[in-house]
């Protein structure tokens, strides 16, 4: 099953695309695992995810912590801390 990844603000600009569908390799269980794996996919990902602790993540449009399991996620969004209001 493929998972849709969506990027916003400077995460989107650094990765160079707004979204993509990926097949997650076996062993990627949590958000932290996903960030580690993505970071290894190339320079642009390394640049975007250099400091994984600052990256905020939403699964199926709800905020989650990095320790959250991603099993069954249709849509995972990665973005910087929010600056609305």
């Amino acid at each position, binding site marked *: 099953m493929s998972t849709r990844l*969506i990027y*916003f*603000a*400077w995460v989107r600009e650094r990765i160079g695309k707004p979204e993509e569908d990926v097949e997650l390799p076996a062993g990627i269980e949590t958000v932290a695992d996903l960030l580690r794996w993505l970071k290894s996919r190339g320079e642009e990902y390394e640049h975007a995810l250099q400091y994984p602790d600052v990256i905020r993540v*939403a699964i199926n*449009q*709800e*905020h989650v912590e990095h320790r959250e399991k991603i099993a069954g996620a249709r849509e995972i*969004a990665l*973005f*910087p*801390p*929010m*600056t*609305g*209001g």
Partner: protein
Amino acid sequence: MPAAVVPTVRIQAEDFDVAAEIAKMTQGRADIGAVVTFSGLCRDEAGRLAALELEHYPGMAEAEIGRIAAEAVQRWPLQGLTAIHRHGRIAPGENIVLVVAASTHRQAAFEAANFLMDYLKSRAPFWKKEHHTDGSEGGWVDAKEADDEAASRWKQAVPKRN
């Protein structure tokens, strides 16, 4: 205990009319004693800023503000609650965000509007990018720690609905 009101949440590119939003909430009723509004506007940063560009996460923006608003109507005895957030390019002097809260007595409306803004700033998926008057791109606005602290203070001292 009366049922909590259903909040109105809108995410839109176009401007909003503050007076019209208040009128919508209060029209035809005589039980509301207090209406508090908060409007957030785009500043020009002493002439440096040409515009803000607000990026948002469609779907989640509505959902997340809806979740915050739903918590507000659980925590305070409100008679109406509206939150509107704009996206896209916004020039200095223009509106960005509006919160309207109505209650029988003022305290609930003040607190609920304050709560909604504090949470919205740190949890609603919007990001501001600056465009400068000299034509340069100013980059993404950094999140403020003070905004996270402002939101976290609501975790204590939960007032009960009565």
